[in-house]
């Protein structure tokens, strides 16, 4: 199950020490149901702000966001979010974290006994998919960074969200772990079929994962370029070495440099 996201004329400004910064300036974007979109851009381009707005954790000054044609109001179970780190509940075991959403009223109404059994089966299949079965009774503090992010993803997927929002989920991981996580998330995408919006500062990650790469530019935060990624959704690690891949990666990186302010200075000379 997946849903579309429509972002209509969104603006959001922040007050930074008396100075108003326009984090997003009339941003428009349509994301189709079942699409994997990655957001990249120089720091301060508003990519994380946009993701938080879609999650409903923040409200826009102007404009609106619709999910499957319905305007959102605050966070909702249809949009799960995976954060960069520190989002797991350290007092719950891995299994307890994954099952957390089951305790909430929002997910609990009208469940029959067999559906409850289904929930337990769902949890174990997610643990299995994420390679966490062996550590299901461990506490988050006992796990490596990569394992913790697997738990965070499994937890987010537990209530079968139509949309999965990921805010630099692998930003704190080492390069090897990150590559493993990339293939894992593509596997999740193929199996769960939810819409994924993925924020990253790593261009290679954005091109490897996304069906479209949305490049944002800072001051004011806006969408600069949208790149269609020409590869099929089944991707293998060696794709990163293909000329076509490198070509796209180089183009995106160059554009980020040009839009980052630093690039503009260099271009003026």
């Amino acid at each position, binding site marked *: 199950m997946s849903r579309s996201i429509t972002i209509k004329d969104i603006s959001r400004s922040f007050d930074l020490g008396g100075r108003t910064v326009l984090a997003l300036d009339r941003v428009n974007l349509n994301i189709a149901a079942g699409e994997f979109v990655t957001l990249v851009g120089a720091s301060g381009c508003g990519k994380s702000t946009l993701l938080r707005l879609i999650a409903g*954790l923040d409200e826009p000054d102007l404009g609106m966001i619709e999910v499957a044609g319905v305007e959102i109001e605050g*966070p909702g179970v249809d949009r799960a979010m995976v954060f960069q780190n520190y989002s797991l509940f350290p007092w719950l075991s891995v299994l307890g974290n994954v099952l957390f959403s089951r305790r909430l*009223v929002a997910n609990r109404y009208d469940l029959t006994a067999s559906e409850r059994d289904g929930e337990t089966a769902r949890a174990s299949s997610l643990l299995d998919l994420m390679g966490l079965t062996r550590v299901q009774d461990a506490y988050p503090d006992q796990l490596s960074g990569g394992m913790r992010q697997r738990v965070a993803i499994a937890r987010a997927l537990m209530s079968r969200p139509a949309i999965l*929002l990921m805010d630099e989920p692998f930003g704190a991981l080492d390069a090897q772990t990150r590559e493993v996580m990339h293939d894992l998330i593509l596997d999740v995408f193929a199996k769960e079929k939810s819409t994924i919006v993925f924020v990253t500062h790593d261009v290679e990650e954005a091109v490897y994962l996304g069906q479209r790469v949305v490049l944002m530019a800072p001051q004011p935060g806006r969408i600069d370029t949208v790149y269609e990624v020409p590869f099929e959704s089944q991707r293998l690690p060696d794709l990163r070495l293909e000329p076509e891949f490198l070509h796209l990666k180089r183009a995106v990186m160059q554009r980020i440099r040009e839009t980052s302010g630093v690039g503009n200075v260099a271009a003026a000379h």
Partner: protein
Amino acid sequence: MTLPIEHNVSDTPLAPPPRRRRRGVDRLWAIRGKSSKTEFAVFAIAGLLVPLAGWMALSHSGILPKLFMPDPIRVIARFWVWITREGFGQDMQVSLLRVSMGFLLALLLALPLGLLAGTFRPVQVFLEPVLDFIRYMPAVAFIPLVMLWFGIGETAKMAIIFIGTFFQMVLMMGDDVRRVAMTQIEAAQTMGANRREVIWQVIFPAAAPALLTTARVTLGWAWTYLVVAELVSANDGLGYAILKAQRFLQTDKIFAGIIVIGLIGLVQDQLLRWLHNRLFPWHGRG
């Protein structure tokens, strides 16, 4: 095109490298070095024996009159007399009850207020300026007022302990709650948690270890204020026993009283640490 790649597939294990670890004194006195169990015991026991020996030496040296500086053995003997003939059990029971009542009252009121102040900005802004002001007023200075209001009964002692701990506790617990990671709260919200669920299923369990630590620290202060209250106005209790001992120049009993209060604090502290580790096995040592 394949490049030749050499894999290391040798099955013969390499000979272990010669032992080069630092040993003995070098290791023990390395910066942030480690100690073996025996070394730990030696230094811990020495840490207790050295001041004891110093005390012995001082009381036998004749620098100070024996009356003012009784030796440890006399203190222990005097303590035994206190236990068997002078109602130590009664004194301790009374003091324990006072501390518990005063402290629990402060805890029961401070905990919800701290939780609210750490969660809701208006509550924080409403409470903190006043509390910040009050907490710098010395609790001891309230004693005359408390005696006018409550006389010299049990309420007065509870009030002193309450004044000495409550305001600080609210502020510290507010900070404990505010230190809960925002990402944990937001993660719960994106899973559909409502306000009540965020407070009870995320903020409270996340802050619980810190709240218990705050309670443990303030319980120590409660003992200080108890003794102050009993020194000023009481007919029984450990503080009063110390005061009475002073009137009769029983310095050995004063020593015994001070040491006993220290021991009670130590036992309480260890019990709460044990509780911390039982309740929060996922958390670092308390």
